[in-house]
């Protein structure tokens, strides 16, 4: 029983990575209708930037703040330069652009920082804490707490501020938002910036666990895509719940389903994507939408 509890908690810990990336993917999808396959590598770039700053002697938390600001600017810039020219294009065009971004950014990261994996020291120290019989490292607990606060702040921003309200309006119906004098282009850039920031929090705070390398976010991206599919791309809360569920499910499957193991953990997101698309394509929390011909 204790072992099961241990597996659930550590799964929940990884689930926070998937939840943040899934939320970032949803923010972009709701605004521009694009599934951003580059969301993971954008977080990787943020982690590398943090590693550079920290290894040059900067305090971890100061580096985190600077990296978040830089990630915000990078996200908004990517929207302006690469997405704006194809805004309103078919999903296939959007897909091509974000996959191109993924490949391009991965190359840029490797060019700047090289392919060798790097290690970022945990800001939470090397201790561990016992939670109802299960043992969690301070890094696991601290990272989960930071991401949880980020997700709550992002939720509050969208729900309770007038800027969040305008962003929702611009995402849901750009044409009528323009007629309400809402600067839709600026709102979409803001959405990309925020998505990049949320992803960067996960990338930097989990870097001590994942190790800093060009491929550090690859499997997390797959699990995040499965999480967004499970929760529904239209639902921010659903994506977060989906991420946490996926984290636990992947961990339990690798421990208890014979033959899966940690190497085959990625079977879980594929199985989830397949089942959700088959049984409930709009996701658990999404709504069926239709497009007027």
């Amino acid at each position, binding site marked *: 029983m204790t072992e099961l509890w241990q597996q659930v908690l550590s799964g929940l810990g990884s689930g926070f990575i998937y939840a943040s990336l899934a939320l970032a993917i949803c923010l972009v999808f709701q605004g521009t209708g694009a599934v951003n396959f580059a969301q993971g590598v954008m977080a990787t770039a943020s982690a590398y930037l943090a590693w550079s700053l920290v290894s040059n002697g900067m305090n971890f938390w100061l580096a985190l703040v600077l990296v978040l600001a830089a990630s915000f600017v990078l996200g908004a810039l990517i929207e302006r330069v690469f997405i704006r020219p194809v805004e309103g294009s078919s999903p296939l065009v959007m897909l091509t652009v974000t996959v191109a971004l993924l490949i391009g950014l991965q190359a840029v990261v490797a060019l700047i920082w090289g392919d060798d994996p790097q290690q970022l020291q945990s800001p939470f120290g090397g201790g561990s804490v016992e939670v109802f019989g299960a043992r969690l490292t301070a890094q696991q607990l601290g990272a989960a707490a930071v991401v949880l606060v980020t997700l709550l702040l992002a939720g509050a921003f969208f729900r309770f501020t007038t*800027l969040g309200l305008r962003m929702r*309006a611009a995402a*849901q*119906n750009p044409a*009528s938002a323009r007629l*309400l*004098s*809402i600067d*839709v282009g600026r709102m979409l850039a803001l959405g990309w910036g925020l998505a990049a920031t949320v992803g960067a929090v996960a990338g930097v705070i989990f870097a001590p666990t994942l190790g800093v390398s060009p491929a550090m976010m690859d499997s997390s991206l797959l699990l995040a895509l499965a999480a967004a599919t499970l929760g529904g791309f239209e639902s921010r809360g659903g994506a977060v719940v989906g991420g946490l569920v996926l984290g636990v499910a992947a961990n339990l499957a690798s421990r208890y389903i014979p033959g899966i193991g940690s190497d085959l953990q990625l079977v879980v997101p594929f199985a989830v994507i397949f089942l959700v698309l088959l049984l409930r394509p709009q996701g658990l929390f999404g709504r069926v939408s239709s497009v007027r011909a």
Partner: protein
Amino acid sequence: MTAPPSAASTGRTDDSAQQRPVLSIRDLSITFSGLRALDGVSFDVPTGGVTAVIGPNGAGKTTLFNCISGIYRGEGDIELAGESLEGKSPHARAALGIARTFQTPTLIEDDTVLANVMLGGFSQTRAGLLSHMVLTLRSRREETDLRERSAEAMDLMGLLPLAAARAADLPHGLRRRVELARALVAQPRLVLLDEPAAGISHTEALEFADLLTGLAERSGATLLLVEHSVALVMRVARRIAVLDFGKLVVEGEPSLVRQDPRVLAAYLGDEAES
């Protein structure tokens, strides 16, 4: 409800404002794949009250609205209170005081009536994006002000008791009112109403007509509506413009329009005679 800047500062008693039309359309034309949807349309919308545009399906009514709000760019000129709208984007036109409703109300379904109404007022806010992101005193003050204006607009439309209701739960008639309240929060000079009676019952349409008349008097905004319901138009409009095949057939007071033989032939038919 506070009146819009132009009407508020000059008021209804000011003769010069009374004489200057809120909207002047001059020789407006637009062609889609060879089809002339609007063909040299010219008329004025007087400041204050309700003006209606009527015409059979495909006459160019909604196209006219799309040209005024800047979604389509036609040839010719459109002036808002003497200022040319040429080259101005939809969002710049909204900021100048043109608000609009749609045939099918476009609301944020998961949000409250209040949040939906507030969305109309951002053309009036001055605090920048950064200011909103870090929630400065100025942005919070503007938000309080926006909430107050939204409450006033909801009051005008009889929506105050529904402020916390979810937009998705409202029946069609009330959704129209939310959309109109949203348009009014911007304190516009001109509100374009695209078929406000579509999809609601005859009785509701007549109630809505009275609401519009009251609104034009109390809000200070001029209402320009496109409508199929002749009953509603005759009840509210001070002036009527009739379009047919993209051309202006006649424009004038309802009594004049009713008797025009071209209108009878093109549109009103038996309805006008009865």
